[in-house]
């Protein structure tokens, strides 16, 4: 079950300050990296919601992000809808598709669930790849960003767009916390702990899973919309299953089921990727070694490691006064 702890609040404040500092001081390339981190952070938040709190390890979240991206691209260019309407529709469509996938997959568990979601993701990928309306192999270009000039905000400015994504991420984090702390979110955690008992108590389990999966997909779809607006061009590569795999890596690297951890994971992953790829073309190898190290360390990712460290320290701090008492007596 999700709880905020002082450490989690502290991590959020640190992350937000770092992002704000970067947003106001960085140059073009730094801002691009920041935006990349923020959009990935939304995707991994969505994934952690279902994988970390309900045991639904999805391998189609990349594809769901792609549905949001393609939905927005087609609706705003080919269909000629205005950006706000196209955004809302794309997010709504992704939520609906996710709900259906969640409902269908709700009865399978473990490896079977993973395979079922992978199959859905691959179906979406190959459809987009083949269908002329989605531009096939060539992808779609000419995607416009949301126009907020009416309130004096120009999202075509790189810095402004990065700030916009930061605000969006904050809102989405709030939404994820609200869902996880709600009756639905608590029941969802209950199902992860003991599905049979929740059912015996009267819960319609598939419905709860589908609802949370739908909300999570909605967030992934929103991340896709922002990704499309960010690059202004999209290709089927966005929907490849490796995107889902990478998102899962980030969640595990950061700390499954902590919500804050995946944010840390997203920052570490993107920075690592850019730093290492400028040094060597074999950067994937190094990221792989780091991931293996994290998994083998038995800590729950980077953030889990930090939580363990502080828990151990506060235990030690409780023990210390006793020691001084003894010395005083002596």
């Amino acid at each position, binding site marked *: 079950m999700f709880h905020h702890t002082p450490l989690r609040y502290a991590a959020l404040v640190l992350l937000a300050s770092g992002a704000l500092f970067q947003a106001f001081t960085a140059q073009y390339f730094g801002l691009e990296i920041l935006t990349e981190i923020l959009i990935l952070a939304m995707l991994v938040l969505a994934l952690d919601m279902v994988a970390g709190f309900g045991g639904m390890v999805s391998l189609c979240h990349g594809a769901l992000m792609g549905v949001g991206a393609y939905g927005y691209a087609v609706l705003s260019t080919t269909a000629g809808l205005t950006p706000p309407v196209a955004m809302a529709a794309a997010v709504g469509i992704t939520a609906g598709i996710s709900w259906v996938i969640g409902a269908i997959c709700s009865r399978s568990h473990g490896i079977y669930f993973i395979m079922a979601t992978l199959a859905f993701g691959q179906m979406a990928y190959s459809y987009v790849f083949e269908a002329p309306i989605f531009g096939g192999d060539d992808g779609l270009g000419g995607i416009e960003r949301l126009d907020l000039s009416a309130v004096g905000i120009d999202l075509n400015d790189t810095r402004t767009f990065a700030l916009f994504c930061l605000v969006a991420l904050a809102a989405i984090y709030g939404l994820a916390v609200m869902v996880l702390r*709600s009756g639905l979110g*608590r029941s969802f955690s*209950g199902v992860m*702990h*003991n599905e049979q008992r929740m*059912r*015996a*108590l009267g*819960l319609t389990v598939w419905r*709860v899973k589908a609802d949370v999966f739908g909300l999570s997909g909605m967030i992934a779809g929103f991340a896709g919309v922002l990704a499309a607006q960010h690059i202004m061009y999209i290709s089927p590569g966005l929907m490849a299953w490796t995107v889902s795999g990478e998102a899962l890596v980030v969640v595990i690297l950061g700390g499954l089921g902590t919500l804050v951890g995946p944010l840390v994971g997203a920052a570490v992953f993107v920075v690592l990727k850019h730093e290492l790829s400028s040094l060597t073309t074999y950067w994937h190898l190094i990221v792989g070694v780091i991931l293996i190290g994290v998994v083998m360390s038995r800590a729950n990712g980077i953030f889990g490691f930090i939580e363990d460290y502080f828990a151990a320290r506060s235990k030690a701090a409780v023990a210390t006064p006793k020691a001084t008492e003894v010395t005083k007596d002596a």
Partner: protein
Amino acid sequence: MLETRNLDKSFGAVHVTRDVSLKLERGERRVILGPNGAGKTTLFNQLVGELTPDRGTVHLAGEDVTALPVAKRARQGLSRSYQKNTLFDGLTVEENLGLAAAIHTGNATTFWSDSLGKAEVREIVKDVANQVDLMPFLHAKVSQISYGVRRQLEVGVALATRPLVLLMDEPTSGVGPEMAKGFHDLLNNLPRDLTLLIIEHDMDLAFDVADTITVLNYGEVVFDGLPDAARGSDLLKEIYLGSWEDA
């Protein structure tokens, strides 16, 4: 309140429920006795819908619920505890009870509002914690409480849905005789209008709470009547004497 008619179930060649017909009135406290493997748990599984009978029907409050899924029957007032603890292990006692109470109060599926913090949920949690003596353990995790207390929680979780009919599968299994006796005092203090069906291994304890007794042997009802009649029954002695001592 709860009734089965000609319930029948086989696992392959093993005939585990043979033409079982039972009838519980509202507020009745019935104990099911029977040696190991008599089919007591299997009968419970069919009553709540976790198993589908090959033949026969289950009626709850006058309605045929044989075709209803587990969750629907539960929402109509049928609740059960398990022989082997089936709890939310990583969570606290309070959260365990709260998840159940949230379902009963209709707070378990709203994504815009909290469940465990709701006044109506907290009230049920407090009431149930008092009923099964869990007050001192509310904030402890399941992993931090003793086996005996977990058995209490197992029943508490089932009670937190405020059922009409509560099925308890050997609530005192694995706990010492003293604690088992205390447990039966708890059961005796439950509201009188709650219909109870209890599987119990210990005959003396069974007589402690039972209004009526049903004895199952090889999946068949071999006795159905008042405790006094059961006490004097030769048939019961015959079935039990062997397995009784080593139980």
